[in-house]
C-alpha cells in the first residue's frame, strides 16, 4: 500500500517510535519530512564532509518518470516513488559535488533529516557518494605541506 506518504524502505520492522512528553514537540517536527524516520540504513555513508554528486543519467530518468506520472495521474504508479521537493532540491544542488554538511546548511535542515533524504536517493542510485579517505592513511607529509602552503597563500 504505497502512496505519496509511504515511508519507503526501512520503515518496516523498526521499533515503534518513542513519544516523549508534549513539550518535546520540536524534537520530532523536522522529521515529518522523512515520514518520521530518524535513521537510514545507509546513513553511515554520509560523513559530514563526504561529497555528494547527482547521477545525471538517473536524475534525468527520474524527471522523465515524473512527467509521465503527471500525464497519467490516478491509480497507476502505486509502486512509483514520489520524491519530496527536498529530494529534488538535493539533486539540483549536487550537479557539482557538495559536502553533506553544506547540503544541510543550504536546505536549512538538520543533518539527521538530510541523511535520511540522501539515503533515499542513494537507494535509487540517484546520487554518488565520495567518502573522505580514512585519516590514518590519508595525510601524507607532502599533502600536509601543501595544506600549509595553501593556508599561507590565503
Amino acid at each position, binding site marked *: 500500500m504505497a502512496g505519496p506518504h509511504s515511508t519507503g524502505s526501512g520503515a518496516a520492522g523498526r521499533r515503534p517510535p518513542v513519544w516523549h512528553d508534549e513539550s518535546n514537540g*520540536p524534537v520530532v517536527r523536522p522529521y515529518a519530512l522523512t515520514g518520521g524516520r*530518524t535513521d537510514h540504513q545507509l546513513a553511515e555513508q554520509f560523513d559530514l564532509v*563526504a561529497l555528494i554528486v547527482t547521477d545525471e543519467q538517473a536524475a534525468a530518468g527520474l524527471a522523465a518518470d515524473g512527467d509521465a506520472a503527471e500525464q497519467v495521474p490516478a491509480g497507476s504508479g502505486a509502486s512509483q516513488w514520489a520524491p519530496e521537493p527536498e529530494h529534488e532540491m538535493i539533486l539540483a544542488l549536487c550537479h557539482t559535488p557538495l559536502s553533506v554538511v553544506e547540503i544541510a546548511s*543550504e536546505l536549512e535542515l538538520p543533518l539527521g533529516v538530510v541523511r535520511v533524504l540522501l539515503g533515499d536517493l542513494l537507494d535509487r542510485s540517484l546520487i554518488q557518494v565520495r567518502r*573522505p579517505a580514512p*585519516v590514518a592513511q590519508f595525510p601524507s607529509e607532502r599533502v600536509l605541506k601543501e595544506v600549509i602552503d595553501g593556508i599561507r597563500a590565503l
Partner: protein
Amino acid sequence: MESVRSDAGPPPGDSALTVKILVAGGFGVGKTTLVSAVSEIRPLRTEEALTEKSIGIDDTTAVQDKTTTTVAMDFGRITLPNGLVLFVFGTPGQDRFWFMWDELAKGALGAVVLVDTRRLADCFASVDYFERRGVPFIIGVNRFEGAARHSPEQVRDALDLPSYVPVIDCDVRDRESAKQVLITLVEHIMRSMSSRRDPGALTH
C-alpha cells in the same frame, strides 16, 4: 546544448579530497570568529536536531527552555590549489552536545582549542576530549581586551600540558593571526605523524 556542469569540482575518484579541522573552546571564546577569518565563504551554519538517538545521553532536565533542541555548528571552507578542501568546524560549546563532538572528531585531522585566560576552565573539557581521543591539538590563547596577559608557558602550566603541545598567542579577529593558528596546527599534526611512525622521536 551547453553543459552546466562546472569543471571546478575535485578530480574524480573513490575518495573525496576533504579534510576537517575543529575549533573548540568555551562559549564566546572566538570560535566562529576564527572560522570566519580563514573561510573563503561566509561561515555557514548547520543544525542537528536531537533525536531519540541522542536524547539517551542528553540531560534535558537541566535545560530550562525545552525548545532548545537543536545544536548549531558554524563551519567554513578553504579550497586549496591542489583541489583539497579543508573544512573548519566550530564545535558546539555546551557539554550536552557531546554526541555531536564524536561525529565531528571522526576523521578530523586535528583541533585548535581556543582559550580565554579569564575563563581558563572553559577549555578543560575540550582538552580532555582531544587527549582521550588521540586527536592532535594545539592551544590558541585568544587576546581579549582587558584580560591580563599570561605567557603561553603560564597557560601550558595551568593546563598541565606536555611540552610537545604548541601553545600560541593569537588574535582570531586578525586573518594573518588566524592563518598562523591553522599553520601551527598542521605543522604539529606533521610532527605527531612522524613520531607515530617513529615513537622514539618524541619524549613525553
